[in-house]
Structures are given as structure tokens and as C-alpha cells.
């Protein structure tokens, strides 16, 4: 029941996903680690798209929620000794609950105030993780996190783990797609377009905002949990506020309000520093300029370039 203009995008996404399955065969050790990080970021950014891209909630807490997922699964799989197959879903549930609990009071705030409150959450998370040594390990973090395994098979190498991440991203994308075209997704988009009209159209505005925010936390929790079982080690630095800003940059560069844009942005921004490694610190100048150019000329992100190209060669669905 999707509008026809999306058929092309769906087809392109399916092809890209299938081609991505063959990637590990061509990528060496370090490259596959970057690729894995890109897939993990993509999950977090798809989540951010619910809150920011759809519902228009300016949140700077995404890295904090990624941290919640990472630490929860770290604690559950080391101290509590649960297998990752169990600790990852529990970490997602826990992060979602934290998202709902934090979102319920915070979402009374709007615009800049919400941005500041969520920023406060992210900063607080790092402070707590740094100082609560007995549970979260302080600046030393938590080490000895087991690699992902199913009974009879361990995904201990980055090459093997890639397929787990691929499957997780595929599922996360499919679920996000389903939500986008359901009444819940429509209501989220409506809230950002016109909050008053959304309420008058029988949508509980606060409820929808909390749902968007919690979903965003859930995806972040999954990304964080998957991250922890790849690095086998978590420390506060990986979830600092600057990472929240990078997630936001990924979404805007790729195309906010679009699931494929979120994935594209995450992959591009993760690989950019690698592609420009020879530039050293000058890379930040390029990154900053690119961000500026996109905001000015492509407010809908790089994905709108693809849409334009498709229209140009006359294969757009419309």
C-alpha cells in the first residue's frame, strides 16, 4: 500500500542490501571494521530519524542511548554471564524503557529547550559512566565482553560479525519501513508538520512524541549492544556528546525524514575520514564545508541527488 513513487527506492534498496552481502569478500581487516561501524551507526541513525526526521524532535541524546545499550549488554554478558543472544534484546528493552522514562517529562519542552535537555542527558550519561566505577567501570570501562555467538557458532571475527550486523540492519530497516507507512508513522510526520492540526485530527500528540523518542532510543540501544559485542570493550568516550552530533550530521547529510537517507548518511560519514586520511586534521575543513554545502543546496540531503538523477533519466515512479 505504498505510494508508487517509492517503488524505485525500494527496488534500489533491495539491490544494495543484496550486493552488500558480497562485500566482505573484497574488504580486508581494517576495512571490514569500518564497514561494521557504518552498519552499527546506520541502525542508530535510522532510530534518530523517527525522533528528528519524522517527529521533528531535536535530540542530542542519541549517543547516550547507544551507550545505554552498550553498557547494559556489557554488564549483562559479563557480570550476569548471559549469552549475547539474550543480553542484546534485554539491552534494547532496557534502553527503550530509559528512553520512555526520560522522554515523558522532557517532551513537554520544545525546540531549543528540548535540544538542551537531551544534551544534558547525554552529558550526564558520560559523567555517570565515568564515576560509577563499581558497575560501569569508570574511565577504564568494561572489558571482556564476549563476542556474539549462537549455539555451535561464534561470530568472533569482524568478517563473520558483518553478517550479523547486516541481518540486524536489514531487520531494523524493514521494521522502520513498516512503521513509517503505518498510522503511527503518519502521525509522527504529521506532528512535525502541524502539531495543532495533528491533535485536532485525534492524535495524542504527547503520546506520539514519546513513541518516536522511545523508538529512537530502542534503535540506539540495539546499535550500542551490537557495538559492545564487536569491540568486546566499552568506555565512556565512545558515547560522548560529540557522537550525538555526528549521528545528527549523518542523518542530515543522508537526508532527514528518509530511512534510506539515514543509512546512506551513516555509511558516507563513517567512510569519509578513511577516504581522506592523507589530509590529516584538514579533513575537518572538508567535512565542515560539505555539511554547509548540503544544508544550503540540498536541505533534503544527498539522497535527494539520487531522486533528482532518477527524475532526469525519467524513471521516477511519478
Amino acid at each position, binding site marked *: *500500500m505504498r*505510494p*508508487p*513513487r517509492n517503488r524505485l527506492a525500494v527496488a534500489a534498496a533491495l539491490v544494495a542490501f543484496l550486493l552488500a552481502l558480497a562485500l566482505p569478500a573484497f574488504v580486508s581487516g581494517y576495512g571490514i571494521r569500518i564497514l561494521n561501524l557504518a552498519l552499527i551507526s546506520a541502525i542508530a541513525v535510522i532510530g534518530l530519524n523517527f525522533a528528528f526526521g519524522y517527529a521533528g524532535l531535536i535530540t542530542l541524546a542519541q549517543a547516550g542511548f547507544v551507550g545505554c545499550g552498550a553498557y547494559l549488554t556489557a554488564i549483562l554478558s559479563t557480570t550476569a554471564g548471559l549469552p549475547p543472544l539474550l543480553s542484546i534484546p534485554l539491552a534494547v528493552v532496557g534502553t527503550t524503557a530509559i528512553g520512555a522514562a526520560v522522554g515523558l517529562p522532557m517532551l513537554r519542552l520544545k525546540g531549543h529547550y528540548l535540544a538542551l535537555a537531551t544534551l544534558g542527558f547525554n552529558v550526564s550519561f558520560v559523567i555517570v559512566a565515568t564515576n560509577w566505577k563499581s558497575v560501569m567501570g569508570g574511565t577504564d570501562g568494561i572489558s571482556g565482553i564476549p563476542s556474539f555467538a549462537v549455539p555451535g557458532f561464534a561470530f568472533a571475527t569482524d568478517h563473520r560479525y558483518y553478517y550479523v550486523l547486516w541481518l540486524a540492519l536489514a531487520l531494523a530497516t524493514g*521494521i522502520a519501513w*513498516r*512503521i513509517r507507512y*503505518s*498510522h*503511527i*508513522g*503518519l*502521525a509522527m*510526520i*504529521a506532528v*512535525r*508538520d*502541524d502539531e*495543532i*492540526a*495533528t*491533535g*485536532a*485530527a*485525534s*492524535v*495524542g*500528540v504527547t*503520546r506520539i512524541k514519546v*513513541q518516536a523518542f*522511545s*523508538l529512537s532510543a530502542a534503535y540506539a540501544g540495539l546499535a550500542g549492544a551490537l557495538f559492545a559485542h564487536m569491540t568486546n570493550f566499552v568506555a565512556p568516550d565512545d558515547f560522548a556528546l560529540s557522537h550525538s552530533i555526528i549521528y545528527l550530521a549523518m542523518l542530515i547529510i543522508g537526508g532527514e*525524514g528518509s530511512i534510506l537517507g539515514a543509512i546512506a548518511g551513516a555509511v558516507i560519514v563513517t567512510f569519509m575520514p578513511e577516504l581522506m586520511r592523507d589530509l590529516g586534521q584538514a579533513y575537518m575543513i572538508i567535512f565542515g564545508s560539505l555539511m554547509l554545502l548540503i544544508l544550503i543546496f540540498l536541505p533534503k540531503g544527498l539522497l535527494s541527488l539520487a531522486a533528482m538523477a532518477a527524475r532526469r533519466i525519467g524513471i521516477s515512479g511519478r
Partner: protein
Amino acid sequence: MTTILAVDGLSKSFGGVHAVQSVSLAVPQGMIFSVIGPNGAGKTTLINVLTGILPSSGGTVRFADRTITDAPAHVIAAAGMVRTFQNGRLFHRLTVIENVLVGAHHRLPQSVWSAITGGVAARRTAEIRSRARGLLETLGLIDDADRLVGALPYGRQRMVEIARALVSEPKLLLLDEPAAGLNSGEVERLREVLLGLRRDGLTILLVEHNMGLVMRVADRIAVIHFGEKIAEGTPAEVRGDPKVLEAYLGHGYRHAGD
């Protein structure tokens, strides 16, 4: 005839400005009840208070035997009293049909889980979608169903708003100046739509500036001036009421034409 909406002594002040002062209305079921008044009379404020967009400063609102004074907007909409907005308020990132679907949100399970798993939500969404398509057909919008709503001309956008209001099968439809900005052909179309809805048993509260439209469709008219109700009656009664003429034309209107 039963009263579906009973407004009793409703007031709304902004600081020292009394935008609505102790207005009482009884809207009978199945009628087109119109509220008119000069610019700035407080008509839109009245609608905003009735539908939970603004909190009231006094008085009560009873709808379908339920007190709904100051209930949240979405609760009032779910209770069966839905509205459109004066300048049109649509969701510009959504298509026409998606805009309409949002109006039925309260008819669907509210959890994210229900949206992921499908089941009841998917089945009911399919029903609502077919009703939405039927409405678009009736309102002459079916060819635009999958276009982004912003791509439509203004007159059609107003009709999309009416479709969004109707998709949840409300008991009472509040229209805030639906004819504003429409050309004469579109006003004629609107008149047919309103009369058709009344024939189907819907109660309509019509706030409107276009007197030609009001006098032809309204069963009963209330006149608001400076936040107060100054007259109420059939179109013929209201038309002849000296207080109404004075409110519209100013003091001394009798000599205006001489």
C-alpha cells in the same frame, strides 16, 4: 429535537481582552448551525475553546451527553467532534490520502507494536483506507490521492481538510470559514457537499463570513459581536434583526442608502 452540543456561559479572556463572553449555544442534532459575526467577533476563539485548542476561562461544554470542557484536543476529536481550520492546516510532507488517514488515528490500536505486527491494525487500516478513498471520490479528489498535499490548489486543499475530518465518521463537524479563499464555483461545490452531509445525518457547526452561503445552507444562525451572542434564530429572523444589521453595518445603517 435532541441537542448534541450544549455550550453554557462559555468565556475566554486573553489578559484584559474578553474574546468570548458568556456565550451559550444549543446545537440540535442533524442541523447546519451557523455562527456568524463581523471580523474579530471571537468566532474562531470560540471554536478553538470548543475543540480543546485553547483553555476556557469559564463555562461548560457538553457534547453528546458528556462534559468535555477543556479536554485535550485529541480526546474531543475522538469523542466525535472534529474541526477544520480557518486557513487550512495540512501535513505537507504527506500525500492527500495520508493526510486523510491521520484523521482516523484514534480508530486504530495505539501501540508501536501493533504497527509492526500488523494484525488488527493492518485490517482496520485497510478499512479506513477504503473509506478515505470513498470520501476522496465524493469530494472530487480521487485523482490527487497519491500526490503530496502541497501540490494541490488552495480550494482542493480545503476539501482535503474536510475529508480528514470526515474519515473518522464524526457526530459533529465544525468548519471554520470553509469558504474563505474559494472561488464561486468552489463555494457552490462546498454548498452541495454541506447539504449532502446534512442529508446523511451529520450535524454541522459552520463559522462563516460568506453570507450568501450561510443564508442558503444554515437551518439556524447565532450572531456573535465583540465576544457576545447578540442574536439567534432562523436565517430570515436573523436577517431582519436590527441588532445584527447594526453590528454588521454600524450605527445609523438605516440612512446609509438614503
